[in-house]
């Protein structure tokens, strides 16, 4: 394994960089899109609720690989040119956003109805009540399950390997094919994933401990 790291370290590290980049972008993107669809799902407008529901149910029930390949194969053919890294990252973002939407929706709904009524009864608007009262309470509820989603996201980014995304898994595959040391290569790849996910895992634990319980 150390030979692999010594001889092909730069390739694997470059893959790690792509994985990190894809993960960070997908994390931010899926958080924004997921929260937006969570708000759709709890909207008092029926058509927004329907849109939210359809999005979540369709996206979360299709395999990530299919979504990523969809962006890699279909979009370049009919819409616009797109490289594997972009297609994979968008696919990852969309896929994860459906799960984040459900997590955020559940968090918001677990804040007691009375909190919203208390806020509305002094004349706060829906948005003001959400920002001032509901979100701050929902965030604390949502942090632990969101941590799970983020860790899954980093690991799921290995889907980029299937769409030529230059990520860690992709580079690992190339190294394994070149050296025939499959076992050692994937051991090294696994270790490098841990380098990304363990700190994330501990960050989430830290947030849970020092912020959620406060």
């Amino acid at each position, binding site marked *: 394994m150390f030979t692999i790291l010594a001889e092909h370290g730069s390739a694997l590290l470059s893959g790690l960089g792509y994985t990190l980049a894809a993960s960070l972008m997908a994390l931010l993107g899926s958080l924004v899109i997921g929260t937006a669809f969570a708000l759709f799902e709890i909207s008092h407008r029926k058509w927004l609720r329907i849109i939210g529901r359809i999005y979540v149910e369709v996206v979360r029930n299709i395999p990530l690989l299919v979504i990523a390949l969809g962006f890699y194969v279909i979009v370049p053919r009919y819409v616009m040119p797109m490289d594997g890294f972009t297609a994979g990252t968008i696919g990852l973002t969309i896929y994860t956003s459906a799960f984040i939407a459900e997590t955020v929706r559940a968090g918001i709904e677990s804040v007691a109805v*009375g*909190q919203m009524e*208390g806020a509305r*009864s*002094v004349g706060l608007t829906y948005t003001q009540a959400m920002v*001032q009262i509901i979100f701050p309470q929902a965030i604390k509820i949502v942090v632990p399950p969101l941590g799970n989603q983020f860790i899954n996201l980093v690991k799921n980014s290995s889907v980029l390997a299937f769409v030529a995304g230059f990520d860690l898994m992709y580079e690992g595959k190339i190294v394994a094919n070149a050296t025939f040391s499959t076992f050692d290569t994937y051991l090294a790849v696994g270790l490098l994933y841990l380098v990304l996910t363990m700190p994330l895992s501990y960050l989430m634990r830290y947030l849970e401990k020092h912020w959620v319980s406060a």
Partner: protein
Amino acid sequence: MSMIEFHDVEKYYGKFHALKNINLTIDRGEVVTIIGPSGSGKSTLLRTINGLERITSGQLIVNDFDLADKNTDMNRIRKNVGMVFQHFNLYANKTVLDNITLGPTMVLKRPKAEVEDSARELLKMVGLEDQAAKYPSALSGGQKQRVAIARSLAMNPRAILFDEPTSALDPEMIGDVLDVMQTIAKQGMTMVVVTHEMGFARRVGDRIVFMADGQILEDESDVAGFFDHPKEPRAQEFISKILNH
């Protein structure tokens, strides 16, 4: 001068007829208590007054605004009509002081320092001036409810609605809350109080409304007379059950 007017108001939840032909006028400065068995529509009636529930048909005028009109801005009504809930509904993520100042600063756009001064005055009035920095979770039920009343008063409302304000409290906490309510009543606040506190209804109320099955069965200004000789059989039964348990 009327503050709240119901004219032929009906309210349905799907097929369930929650409010039946409600006609009720409440004048400014009046303290009206609403009593009746559970499920009689008391809370629903109260919640229509600040638009937490919408009426199905009829006319409902609150502070000169027509609540049946879809274009009426509910936030303008709520700015002027406070509400105190059975389960307090204090903001769990804000301190006692911030609970009180949020409405005046965000909705009335009053300067923060001025709002905090009057919030501390209100806390003094409800006997909780030393609790300003605490979070609601650190308070007892009776304290929470007094903060909720202070929060409502901080908006300088024209009327306050009380939805069973003492029903979730331990018996020894009830007195403090009722005392605060009596003080507010004496200051001339228009109050609509859904309650099971017959002593309060009798002592403080200017008028009593008895509801059952979504209808107003009695609406009586002679409160003592109502308790001594309720006219409606349903009211007689209710009063005797409550007073002789």
